[in-house]
């Protein structure tokens, strides 16, 4: 009898067996036994007490993305569990590995509308990779082991363990054993040799090939393999929002970001390529524009670990089902060295025009007494942050501009909410990102709207001294929506102006040093002070509400219909092939 432990103890020992040393959690009635047990293990596991469960799960997402380990979240039942839903959905869309543990009413009370009972299984099944209710302590080790295996292998995702209170205090003698096999789940399918051979042949035959790099490459740690393949066959690489930083921004074959607010080169050339090699990406509608006119000249080669992505949005001419790294490494010896100089240069020609239109000092303006533009801030912060910096963003204009113009030097350098576009993601995700990569500078770009969705997490920064650099692009508007209203709704700014608090004072009340930056003239010195300061810092940067994100492909247009400003659509010169 003496070697029996409680279900809560079994859970914590399981976490330790999985090398978890940090969890993101918030206590409450039906999870108290777990936090009680964690009290005995404070030397092994640190809990980060966020100020809201949504903050906990976004922080865990940030942590997972920079540390390449599953993020662990622990919350109570009912309202705490429902506060996690946005993060679960976000992690599901963006393939982020999470193990989320929620407390639950005792098994005997399930279905009775007990206090703080909510149907976590029913709610989470559509937005989690796997949900399981632990109703007996004997199931803890089994379920937790499966949870870690499922969350972190294959196409990663969030897993939910709904842990009834009685199971937390029951006794069990089941020891923890990591899970390596689930018969109904094949995390790493072996790529078919014939598919690899066909893929190589398609690549060898192409004269205008282009790689669309998604986060699948980051997840598979296939960055080196990607680089080797792209260099050997001289293939330009464009990245999805989440695929950014798979190649350094300075790599001559890296041609920029795809999609609605991507760079001109890759978007225009998508419709001129004769071969699209899509790797670990899912042809999101923000990337493709209208699918009917997507890549009309190209054969599509789709490489992904998730078979259900094949032919879901875009029909592929050939597919390779497997892990990006295994597939790319298998392709490398079969791919012939090639040169596509003219084609590769054509990306730069388009991108130069973009640069001249929106990304030069002239385009930004030079008046030192005026508000800086968002692109300018992104460029300057990126320069000051230096090598190895991680960009975290919220959602909106701040996201698009910073993601596009940040200079990435190493892999895993962007943490952003891509699929779900969750405002409020940024601040907590930045906290987790810093905790997952403490040695790297973490710069958060956020808007005044999004920041206020989870602004209470400034308290978490205060409590843990997390050295996050917060760049608040403050236009006193819900800027991204304002931009659509300006362009497509006759400037009717319905419900987008915002009366904001004094962010500098707000930060100060949390003990976070902050500065107001009203003008371009003040920007550079403020950025330098922020980056030199050892600890968290907030820059409240005044942005003209009329500042917009261009280029832009509006909804319902082909990917090569690109607005350069409110009135001009990009017309490539005939000499750019």
């Amino acid at each position, binding site marked *: 009898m003496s070697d029996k432990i409680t279900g809560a103890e079994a859970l914590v020992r399981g976490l330790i067996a999985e090398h978890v040393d940090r969890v993101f959690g918030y206590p409450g009635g039906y999870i108290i036994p777990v936090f009680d047990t964690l009290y005995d293990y404070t030397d092994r596991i640190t809990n980060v007490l966020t100020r809201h469960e949504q903050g906990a799960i976004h922080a865990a997402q940030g942590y997972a993305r920079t540390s390449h380990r599953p993020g662990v979240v622990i919350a109570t039942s009912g309202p705490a569990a429902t506060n996690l839903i946005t993060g679960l959905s976000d992690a599901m869309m963006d393939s982020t590995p999470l193990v989320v543990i929620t407390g639950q009413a005792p098994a005997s009370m399930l279905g009775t509308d007990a206090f703080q009972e909510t149907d976590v299984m029913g709610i989470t099944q559509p937005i989690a990779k796997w949900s399981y209710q632990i109703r007996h302590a004997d199931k803890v080790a089994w379920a937790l082991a499966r949870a870690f295996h499922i969350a972190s292998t294959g196409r990663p995702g969030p897993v939910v363990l709904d842990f009834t209170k009685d199971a937390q205090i029951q006794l069990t003698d089941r020891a923890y054993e990591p899970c390596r096999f689930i018969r109904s*789940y094949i995390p790493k399918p072996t790529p078919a040799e014939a598919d690899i051979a066909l893929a190589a042949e398609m690549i060898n035959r192409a004269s205008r090939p282009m790689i669309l790099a998604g986060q699948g490459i980051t997840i598979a740690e296939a960055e080196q393999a990607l680089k080797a393949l792209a260099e050997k066959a001289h293939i330009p690489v464009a990245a999805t929002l989440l695929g950014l930083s798979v190649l350094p921004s300075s790599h001559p074959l890296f041609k920029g970001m795809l999609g609605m607010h991507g760079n001109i080169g890759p978007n225009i050339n998508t419709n001129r390529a004769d071969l699209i090699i899509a790797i670990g990406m899912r042809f999101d509608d923000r990337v493709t524009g209208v699918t009917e006119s997507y890549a009309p000249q190209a054969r599509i080669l789709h490489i992904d670990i998730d*078979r*259900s992505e094949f032919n879901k949005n875009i029909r592929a001419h050939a597919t390779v089902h497997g892990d990006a790294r295994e597939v790319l490494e298998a392709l490398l010896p079969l791919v012939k060295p090639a040169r596509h100089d003219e084609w590769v240069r054509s990306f730069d020609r388009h991108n130069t025009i973009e640069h001249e239109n929106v990304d030069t000092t002239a385009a930004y303006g030079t008046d030192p007494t005026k508000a800086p533009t968002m692109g300018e801030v992104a460029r300057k912060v990126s320069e000051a942050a230096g090598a190895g910096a991680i960009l975290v963003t919220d959602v909106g204009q701040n996201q698009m501009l910073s993601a596009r113009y940040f200079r990435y030097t190493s892999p895993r350098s962007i943490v952003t909410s891509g699929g779900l576009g969750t405002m409020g993601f940024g601040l907590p995700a930045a906290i987790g990102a810093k905790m997952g990569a403490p040695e790297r500078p973490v710069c958060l770009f956020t808007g005044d709207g999004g920041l206020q969705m989870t602004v209470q997490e400034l308290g978490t920064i205060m409590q843990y001294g997390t050295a996050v650099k917060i760049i608040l692009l403050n236009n006193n508007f819900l800027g991204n929506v304002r931009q659509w209203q300006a362009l497509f709704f006759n400037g009717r700014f319905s419900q987008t102006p915002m009366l904001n608090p004094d962010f500098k004072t707000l930060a100060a009340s949390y003990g976070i040093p902050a500065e107001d930056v009203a003008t371009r003239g003040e920007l550079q010195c403020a950025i330098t002070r922020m980056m030199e300061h050892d600890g968290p810092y907030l820059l409240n940067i005044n942005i003209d509400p009329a500042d917009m994100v261009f280029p832009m492909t509006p909804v319902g247009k082909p990917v090569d219909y690109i607005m350069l400003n409110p009135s001009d659509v990009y017309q490539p010169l005939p000499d750019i092939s």
Partner: protein
Amino acid sequence: MTTHDESTLYTVTVFSENHVGLLNQLSIIFTRRCLNIESISASTCSIPGVHKIVITCHSSQSMMDKVIGQIEKRIDVIKAFYFTDDEIVYQEVALYKVPTPVMLRENHVEEIIRRHNARILEITPEYTVIEKTGHYSETEELFRELQRYELKQFMRSGRVAVTRSPIEHVDNFLNQRLTNEY
């Protein structure tokens, strides 16, 4: 060859672990794609511990490919397939409840039951329950005929189906998984 247009009736068969909430996981996938489930049935199958769920719905082949992909992605699902009617042997059971006095008064009823190869399951002075196993059109035809005789209740089961293929894909898959494990 069966043609595949938007309105082909497909039979989806799902082999899964016997975990709580599986049906919910499956129905979500159909709901999200705005697919109406025509019928559903679930039972154990020849493989110990494995559950088989059969769902029918009208759709197109490309949609079915997507749906099967998303079903198989669920961790607890072992394998999923879709078939057109020519690829499977399938049946449905229907029960009909008619008032016994009407049965006795109208001697056609007995003749109808015989003609349809149906049978009487239970007779009381008040009601008679008739059972018919067959394809949808057959149970439907009997339904239409019995409607003339004050039919009180009618229920048709979901489809049960086995494949015509000589290859047992799920057994092979599971055997292969077991040998790979070690």
